[in-house]
């Protein structure tokens, strides 16, 4: 199937013009009523058809008796009624529904529901639709103005997410949003009775809006297909996989969570090595890595190796150097010409001009922070790093410098970036002690930086993991492009 055919196939899901809602009550308190409210607030302007056995009207909308009786065929049906009633509902759709998402649980995730799940899948086929779920939360698709979450960015972004857990999907949106992630979509797939993570992966790979893909997977029943899709995609987009159930104990937890056996850890490592997809272990690493790929353009022709650390905090620099070395990133001292050029700037005592470049606040606030431009220009011209991590310990600035110093430091770095396009990845680490007013300042500063396309991290280690993921991706693409 061509990219365009795949996009056409899934567009009714990601940008529906007709939405049916099954399970809304006349009292307006059920989950489907909340869904109706949310998509209206989110700006959805297409048709909404509540389906109800007896009510004439729900939430001010005309209600219909069945999926077969709506004025227009249904692009997307949101279904949250008792599990046992759903197969008959789907089977009676008469080919007029394209995607049905079953929120209800009580299917394959419990022993007594396995038979009902088979019935559900058969009913969806009989009704001529594709099925999402059951046992999931919904879809968040800013381009279609449809969302199951209370909070989520309104703008469309480059990050496409597939989550086998609904709750974790919500976490990804909410936490990711605060970090600056912007999404092309997030689909919760639940028990995957019909549509699997691989189907959604195919869409995001084809979708021009999506530049990086994140998957939370507990089980890959169609692992073979996942492998083949990733292999054939030839790492055209970074794919970050947070895999649940990679240990025996995690596997048991996953089995009770989604109702099927998870694969073995070693097969996931093999998948990553063979296809270039990136495996991460925690939600934080997942968001950190997605953020990096959202903001930065991978440079496979010169994979990230040499990293320059620049900022205030000597011990922090030393610890980060150790940590990055363990991740396979080099923080190596500059060659003599670079050191000589930096020495010629005659920076105040206490400034370390090898790599890591440790500048106390007294140095960084010179010329209201514009001194950074001179330092970085020398580093870029003769040090030739593949990545620059600027780390600022905000506690040391506040009360000692003018407010604009921090902005000037970042602006200085961006100016140098623009003089050396494509040379080095620029990452910002904003360290804080958690004091409320400082956190507030950090929040604003982070938002500004993210708006400028800079990925921002809380600590050196988070940035290190993300950089190591970028390195792995760049190396993979490099090794396969020869």
């Amino acid at each position, binding site marked *: 199937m061509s990219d365009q055919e795949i996009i056409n196939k899934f567009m009714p899901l990601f940008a529906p013009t007709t939405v049916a809602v099954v399970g809304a009550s006349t009292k307006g308190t059920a989950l489907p009523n909340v869904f109706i409210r949310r998509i209206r607030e989110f700006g959805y302007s297409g048709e909404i058809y509540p389906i109800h056995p007896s009510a004439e009207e729900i939430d001010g909308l005309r209600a219909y008796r069945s999926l077969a009786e709506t004025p227009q065929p249904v692009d997307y049906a949101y279904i949250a009624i008792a599990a046992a009633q759903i197969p008959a509902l789907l089977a009676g759709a008469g080919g007029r529904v394209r995607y049905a998402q079953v929120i209800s649980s009580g299917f394959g995730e419990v022993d007594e529901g396995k038979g009902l799940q088979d019935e559900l899948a058969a009913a969806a086929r009989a009704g001529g639709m594709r099925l999402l779920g059951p046992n999931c939360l919904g879809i968040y698709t800013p381009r279609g103005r449809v969302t199951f979450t209370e909070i989520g960015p309104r703008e469309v972004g480059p990050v496409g997410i597939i989550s086998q857990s609904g709750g974790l999907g919500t976490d990804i949106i909410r936490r990711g949003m605060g970090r600056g992630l912007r999404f092309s979509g997030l689909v919760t797939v639940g028990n995957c009775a019909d549509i699997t993570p691989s189907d959604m992966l195919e869409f995001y790979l084809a979708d021009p809006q999506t530049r990086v893909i994140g998957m939370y997977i507990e089980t890959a029943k169609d692992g073979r297909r996942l492998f083949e899709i990733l292999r054939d995609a030839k790492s055209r987009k970074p794919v970050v996989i947070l895999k649940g159930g990679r240990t025996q104990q995690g596997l048991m937890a996953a089995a009770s969570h989604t109702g099927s056996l998870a694969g073995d850890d070693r*097969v996931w490592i093999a998948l990553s090595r063979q296809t270039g997809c990136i495996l991460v272990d925690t939600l934080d690493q997942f968001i950190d890595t997605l953020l990096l790929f959202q903001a930065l353009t991978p440079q496979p022709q010169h994979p990230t190796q040499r990293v320059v650390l620049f900022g205030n905090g000597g011990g922090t620099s030393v610890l980060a150097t150790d940590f990055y070395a363990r991740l396979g990133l080099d923080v190596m001292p500059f060659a003599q010409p670079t050191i000589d050029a930096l020495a010629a700037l005659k920076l105040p005592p206490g400034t370390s001009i090898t790599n890591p470049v440790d500048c106390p606040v007294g140095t960084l606030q010179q010329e209201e922070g514009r001194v950074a431009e001179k330092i970085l220009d020398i580093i870029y011209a003769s040090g030739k790093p593949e990545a620059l991590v600027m780390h600022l310990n905000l506690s040391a600035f506040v009360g000692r410098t003018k407010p604009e110093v921090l902005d000037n430091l970042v602006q200085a770095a961006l100016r140098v970036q623009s003089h050396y396009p494509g040379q080095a990845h620029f990452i910002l680490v904003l360290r804080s002690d958690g004091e409320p007013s400082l956190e507030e300042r950090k929040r604003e500063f982070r938002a500004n930086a993210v708006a400028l396309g800079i990925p921002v991290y809380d600590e050196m280690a988070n940035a290190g993991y993300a950089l190591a993921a970028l390195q792995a991706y760049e190396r993979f693409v490099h090794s396969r492009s020869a």
Partner: protein
Amino acid sequence: MKMHDLISMARKQNRSALDEQAGKALLARYGVAVPLSVIVAGADEVAQKMKPLKFPVVVKVMSPDILHKSDAGGVKVGLKSAAEVEGAIRTMMQQPAIAAVRIDGFLIEEMAPAGQEMVIGGLRDPQFGPLVMVGLGGIFVEVLADVSFRICPITRLDAQEMLAELKGAAILKGARGRKPVSQEAIIDVLLKVGGENGLLTQHAADIKEADINPLIVSDAGAVAVDARFILS
């Protein structure tokens, strides 16, 4: 015998695994070198049948009922004459663990030249299909679990990376003054087993687990000295 015949014959005999001889025949069909061998029913046939073989040889008992041949006293290595082979077979037939079970015969095999022992394995993952594995033999596999896996089919680059990611990779390159081991010979076997149209992909439905242990790699190339295929 055709490749699928080896498997269907084992199934007809209600066997859950290919015996060593059939396993090696399967490998040979895919171009993996195995030692030259003959099968004899007993000591009386030795002088006549083993003429094409070069000494030293190894004798192994063949029985579907014996899982660990060495433990049963069913393996004798380093035999340098037909008389030694005859003697070894007579001794084996008197071992209690051998005398009590069904015997298919005795496998007489040329001994592979000494070299680096490797293990190449395969297994079928219920979700991802056939996987191929490689490791250095002995304690590296058994104690340290120093192995790498890939999903079949693998490419040449995948095979190279599999070897490179072993903790024992330095040994292959010739650590501590030892001669380097031919990685090309190992990669060649990996591709025949796990590559495009390789053994594991072609027999994905039939093979549950495969174990070439050891594969001995020397200047003479890589030879599969023992092989075991468990059928699904």
